């Protein structure tokens, strides 16, 4: 008989909707999205352009507020947090990897990896050890002292991923992390993320258009017109 250990739910959205009122015609970017993400997931959010992927990730990440509904992260309802509390919440609980402009250009790769830990006021020693360990794991230890402009796009994204990892967030959100990479680098980045997902038991949620990237996900949530159309676990 199979015993299933109840997995911890890290993200739970309840009926969230988002309407943008910036133009004359309001745009309904999300409609009643209910989503639960468990610890350790490696999930892709897919869907055509304009389907609401970025909007959903921004709301889950506390960068944007829903027009309606609740987002519970761990046991905090972040829909009720004030802006300054949200910044702090993001700092301590959520990792981000963006499509580009992830790194601080004037800092070296290692300093970039240490940056969030620094904002979290971790000790010098802990930052140093963790940054070097992670750089080594992704094969960038010899680039530790190099600035982002001297790294390839793929290397920059890897640094961005381990920067997010280093701060030990509850999960990492990545909005089209491979969109600016060639397919080989995109594959490498995804493999690396998958490895971190296993080794560090880090939950990843990423959006993408790239079929080869989608193939590496263990769960694929498909959005269309701001609604979840399919949700398949492989």
């Amino acid at each position: 008989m199979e015993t299933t250990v109840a997995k911890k739910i890290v993200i739970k959205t309840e009926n969230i909707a988002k309407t943008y009122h910036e133009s004359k015609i309001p745009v309904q970017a999300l409609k009643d999205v209910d989503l639960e993400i468990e610890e350790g997931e490696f999930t892709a959010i897919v869907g055509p352009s304009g389907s609401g992927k970025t909007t959903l990730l921004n709301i889950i990440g506390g960068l944007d507020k829903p027009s309606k509904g609740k987002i519970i992260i761990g046991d905090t309802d972040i829909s009720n947090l004030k802006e300054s509390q949200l910044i702090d919440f993001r700092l301590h609980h959520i990792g981000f990897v963006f499509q580009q402009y992830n790194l601080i250009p004037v800092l070296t790769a290692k300093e970039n990896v240490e940056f969030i830990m620094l904002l979290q006021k971790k000790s010098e020693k802990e930052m140093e050890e963790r940054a070097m360990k992670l750089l080594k794991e992704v094969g960038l230890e010899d680039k530790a002292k190099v600035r982002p402009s001297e790294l390839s796009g793929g290397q920059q994204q890897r640094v961005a991923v381990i920067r997010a990892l280093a701060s030990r967030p509850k999960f990492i959100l990545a909005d089209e992390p491979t969109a600016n990479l060639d397919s080989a680098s995109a594959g490498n980045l995804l493999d690396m993320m998958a490895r971190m997902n296993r080794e560090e038991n880090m939950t990843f949620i990423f959006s993408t258009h790239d079929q080869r990237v989608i193939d590496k996900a263990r769960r694929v949530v498909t959005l269309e017109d701001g609604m979840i159309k399919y949700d398949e676990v492989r």
Partner: protein
Amino acid sequence: MLIKIAWRNVWRNKGRSLVVIGSIVVGIWALLFMLGFMNGFTVSYINGAIEHEISHIQIHHPKFKQDYDIAYSIPNGLSLKEALSSDPKVAAISPRSFANGMISSTRKANGVRIYGIIPELEKHVTHHDSLLTAGTYFESKQRNPVIIGNELAEELKVDINSKIVLTFQDEDNNLVAGAFRIAGLIETSSPSINKFTAYVKMEDFNRIAGIGQNIHEIALFLSSPNDEAPLMDKLKKEHPDLLIESWRTIAPELELFLSMTDSFLWVLFGIIMIALIFGIINTMLMAVLERYRELGMLMAIGMNKWRVYMMIVIETVFLSLVGGPLGIIIGLATMNWLGIHGIDLSAYSEGLKAYGYDSILYPSIENNIYIFVTIGVIITALIGALYPAYKAIQLNPTKALHTV
């Protein structure tokens, strides 16, 4: 780390930072130069007046200055002079007898202020022996020598050794006259000395006037300008029956000039600082806009507004901290060099001389001005940083990240 990032950000756009640093340097340099120039102007003007005309302190009979009546001499003037000359604060002292009168040559006559002086004492007070354009300072053995200003000589069409006659009223309002021979001509920065003054020996003057040992004026030249106030207090207390005045009251226009220069310099200071503020705001706003996405990313990953704000402020202060001291060092070096070599204004000196200036100007700045300017620049930078930093924290991270 914030400091490290801010410092490196300063050097991120080297060209732009150098332009700002350069403008801070030039601004401060120009400010210091103007301050030094104006200050040098003022100091040289005032010192010129003190050293060659007014001296620091003058003593008269309280009624003497009402109409310069020869009868109002200083009681026991010469013994008072003796007593004062032993005061260590007094570097030089000159007793003078005085009358308003006429000077006439064979060609022309002119109004003139006639001073009877003791040359050996007078030359250490007004230093006219250094301003001779012809002749000597009462050194020849001639009888009745007189020294007049070069412009007066021109007016009278006289030269060295020419004979002139001085006419004035004695104590009983009788006209008395004496024939004098021109021993020397002087050229000072004071038009009134150059055009309307004659110096003769006191013994000659007093003999003709028939006033014995009476004197009308005692001029004191002090060892240090700082001694002026204490000595004035002391003299006023000890001699309540005499009129004791410092150069500030004798020539109130000098004091006015001093305070006008002062306010002018404040205005200049303000203008340069305001120009700097706008330069800094402009640059830092550009730096913020250029880094919009990066700042958005920083706020997205959890850098709070206070830190973002401080990062921009620190960055701005760094800019000014690089430019400020550099400007001050260059300014200091310029001032030191010019303080020694002076600026030769002789090309314009005809015009300047009419206002009493020397033709070589030695710019100078008081030390506290440097500290002042440094603090001014830092405050300016801080003010200049406020708006760009405020702009930075107003941004919305999601929008900033998606602006392309």
